[in-house]
């Protein structure tokens, strides 16, 4: 086989010369991830709150989201193709459904963990249920919820690459295109960026969590 550069795992020159391809793939991937987790959160919050308030809903909600989670992404894409075509929407819908199980479970776990005494105290102070939820319960549940967002984000970063199989712009597409050139470095870059993106998002969200819940830090410092 000729040109050994093509086989190099890290051909820096190629990376330098083709930053537009790398950048657009990364950008599209970030958009997909943020959109999927964002939309998932919007759907999961009411579901989680409902499952916490009316316990009987928990099993069916977890059941349905669990089933959705179990359907492999390629199959999910295949189900959608006749209806949504080969667009970003086709990739987005399964990705959103994958976040649901993780987010709902963590939202419920977070809300469940709010001590009963605190809820009683709020009731005693005349808080309405809605106000109690928004001002007391959700903030206290925040660490667990953000933990869920972190897991969901990392999971979606990995899963979104399957969109590359359908030639939808993403890091997965970068991997496929690169392999087709055939430039092995593109595959390396695709994987490396995927991991880097996941780690970065994870750390960012961890930072957000620390910012939003200073009291948990205080409790830890007190050696609980």
């Amino acid at each position: 086989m000729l040109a050994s550069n093509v086989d190099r795992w890290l051909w820096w020159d190629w990376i330098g010369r083709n930053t537009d391809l790398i950048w657009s793939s990364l950008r599209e991937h970030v958009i997909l991830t943020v959109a999927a987790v964002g939309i998932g959160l919007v759907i999961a919050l009411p579901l989680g709150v409902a499952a916490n308030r009316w316990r009987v809903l928990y099993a069916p909600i977890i059941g349905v989201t669990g089933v959705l989670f179990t359907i492999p992404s390629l199959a999910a894409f295949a189900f959608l193709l006749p209806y949504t075509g080969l667009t970003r929407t086709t990739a987005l819908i399964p990705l959103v459904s994958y976040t649901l199980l993780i987010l709902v479970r963590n939202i419920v776990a977070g809300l469940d963990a709010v001590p009963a005494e605190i809820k009683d105290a709020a009731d005693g102070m005349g808080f309405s249920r809605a106000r109690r939820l928004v001002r007391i319960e959700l903030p206290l549940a925040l660490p667990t919820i953000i933990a869920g967002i972190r897991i969901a984000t990392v999971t979606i970063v990995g899963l979104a690459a399957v969109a590359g199989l359908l030639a939808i712009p993403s890091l997965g597409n970068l991997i496929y295109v690169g392999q087709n050139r055939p430039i092995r470095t593109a595959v390396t870059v695709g994987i490396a960026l995927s991991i880097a993106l996941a780690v970065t998002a994870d750390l960012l969200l961890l930072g957000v969590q620390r910012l939003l819940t200073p009291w948990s830090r205080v409790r830890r410092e007190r050696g609980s």
Partner: protein
Amino acid sequence: MRSNRFRLLVASTAVLALLGAACGDDDDTATTDTSGEAEGGATFEFVALDAGGPITKDALEKGDIDIALLFSSDGAIAANDWVALEDDQDLQPVDNFIPAVNSAAVTEEVTAALNAVSDVLTVEAMQEMVAAVSIDGENPADVASDFLADITVPEGATGDLTVGSANFAESEITAELYAQALESSGATVEKKLQFGARDAYLPALISGELDVVPEFVGTLAYYFDANADVTADLEHSLEVSRALAEANGVTLLEPAEADSINTFVVTQETADEYGLETVSDLAEVDEPLVLGGPPECPERPLCLQGLVSVYGLKFQD
């Protein structure tokens, strides 16, 4: 505890039984001749890989397959000293590069600018550019601008145009050529390269989300009509494709010389061993070779079916 162990035992037995069934031999693998009467020549095997993509090329390189279906514009053929078998029976229809433009965006100046590209896009030029991107790792934009530096593009195009491409080098390069030609002609161009597969970018072209994409005279017709009458005659195929395209709001301009047709490729070693130069030579081979191609190959007249009916080859089922 005992009932738990019992359950565990039952469960594991079930799992193992399932696996055992899975590992069981397949009795229903038939090996029937799909051709019938052709004498001489062994029965070949077909393996479904991808459409002239990396999987197929890797397989050819490793020797997992003997014959690969690739595209004539693929830089890997020259780079690896592979042998492209000549299509001596004219099985393959033409598939010249051609600008496909959303009919609403067609103006005289746009047409002139794009046709200026088609005029100079020869087979060698395309192969060189593809090799530069595939093997030398150049950016398609740079390769295209180098090429255009030696050409004068007629000026006068105006407006905002969006140029898209598919995911493979040939398409990206050609799209860059179109985009830069339009820009130097005076239009404002937005590039949406790597748009996706044909079933992604063609609807976008029809809807107007994209204005210009590089297409192929032959395979484009099949998208609109799976039984389109596209042949090795360029004039005739152009007519057919143009009619189908116009009916969907797409205008095809002038075809380039460069094309990207189905090509059956073997390694130099294989060619030497069996004395292969044309596709017809394959009919003389007395050992069961393996052909690697896209999954749809067995159902395509241009692929396995054509090899059987036109070249008299035999394949296992």
